[in-house]
């Protein structure tokens, strides 16, 4: 059966390449999937899997998401209520938090309680944004990380961010990365997951993770 994947378009950058990455991952893993970039809440409601991307500032993204009439309500219903598999990417993951502290204090969706705050590396010579390829340190086993080698000798993920989500519940952290201290790289709770890095830009690791998401039955 062909499954449908909705990538939510709320004016936050180019989603065409993200869609192509999902199409490539589906083809490589032999999954029949229809990938749709959409700003239509009805399409999101009908989707088997939901992806929330996001680039830019937290407040802008929240504002953009709220500007799509009915979208947050549909997400609350199908992700929180109907428990459909959900993946937030970059600011799309940060929006899961209780609050964003970038420029101003902005409410998030509150699905993964915690704040999104400026990264403060212990080594002051480290540059902000945290930009480039870094390793993942898995905190737990998870289907999304199946077949992905983590740790210092493992695969790399592409990060570009100055702010990071620190969940209140340690068990919500699925993977950390190291940048002058631990930085949240992935969160997961039930059917809700998020990556601070960009799987659609992370070559081998990214395509594998997207494949895993397409096969994930939380």
């Amino acid at each position, binding site marked *: 059966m062909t499954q449908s994947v909705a990538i939510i378009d709320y004016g936050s950058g*180019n989603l065409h390449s993200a869609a192509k990455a999902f199409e490539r991952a589906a083809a490589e893993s032999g999954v029949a999937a229809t990938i749709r970039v959409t700003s239509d809440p009805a399409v999101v409601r009908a989707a088997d899997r939901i992806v929330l991307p996001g*680039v830019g500032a937290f407040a802008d993204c929240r504002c953009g998401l709220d500007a799509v009439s009915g979208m947050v309500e549909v997400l609350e219903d199908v992700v929180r209520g109907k428990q459909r598999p959900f993946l937030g990417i970059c600011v799309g993951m940060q929006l899961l938090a209780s609050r964003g502290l970038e420029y101003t204090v902005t409410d998030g969706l509150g699905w993964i309680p915690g704040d999104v705050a400026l990264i403060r590396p212990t080594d002051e010579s480290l*540059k902000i944004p945290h*930009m480039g390829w*870094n390793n993942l340190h898995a905190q737990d086993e998870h289907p999304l990380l199946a077949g992905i080698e983590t740790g210092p000798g493992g695969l790399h993920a592409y990060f570009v961010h100055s702010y990071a989500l620190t969940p209140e519940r340690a068990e919500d952290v699925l993977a950390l990365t*190291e940048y002058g201290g631990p930085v949240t790289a992935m969160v997961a709770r039930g059917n809700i997951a998020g990556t601070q890095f960009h799987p659609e830009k*992370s070559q081998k690791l990214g395509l594998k993770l997207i494949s895993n998401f397409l096969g994930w039955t939380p």
Partner: protein
Amino acid sequence: MSLKTRIIPCLDVKDGRVVKGVKFVDLVDAGDPVEAAKAYDAAGADELCFLDITASHEDRGILFDVVTRTAEACFMPLTVGGGVRTVDDIRKLLLAGADKVAIMTAAVQRRAFVKEAAEKFGDQCIVVAIDAKKVAPERWEIFTHGGRNATGLDAVAYAREVVSLGAGELLLTSMDRDGTGAGFDLDLTSRIADAVSVPVIASGGVGTLDHLVDGVREGHASAVLAASIFHFGTFTIPQAKAHMAAAGLAMRLD
């Protein structure tokens, strides 16, 4: 610290074609930037950079198509620069699939443009490209138009200023070294890298693999950009990465 040093091959694109061609692999069409991008993606480049040198503004539509086709085929970060003058230019490139946009002359002419761009699209996607030339001992100045036009601006002060306005990264090119193969201007690079909080990409002058190592170790750059040594097949990306790793730098080898 497990963030890796990035190697960024740069392609000069004119009227939708790679200038001089790329000779390092068996490309069907060595002048097609999308073919070259795919080859660099497969070779393990950490990011890719397109610099558009199309003379006429009217012909720049071709670039958007090149960016779109590249972003569809390569799942790696892409920076595009050249002739970016307005917020709308940036928006079009980002919508075409660029991850970062490099601003050059427009930032020199009107510094507020950097702030407008960063506020609109986020610091992380605004790269300011700095072309600098040594004009006196310990002094480098900003030049525009391929090094022909002097501005009198001190490069270090300018770097600090554009970062304070929201540049998320600097692409620093030594106009003295560009195309010489004599290595980066390490004094210039370290001066600027040490003066700003954001990552600096060193560019201009790479002729050997040791030059790449020097750019990071002595120039304090977060990333190294090169064109000729990769395009002409002098070295491959994996050779460059292996050399830098052997020198003790943290590199991504997957």
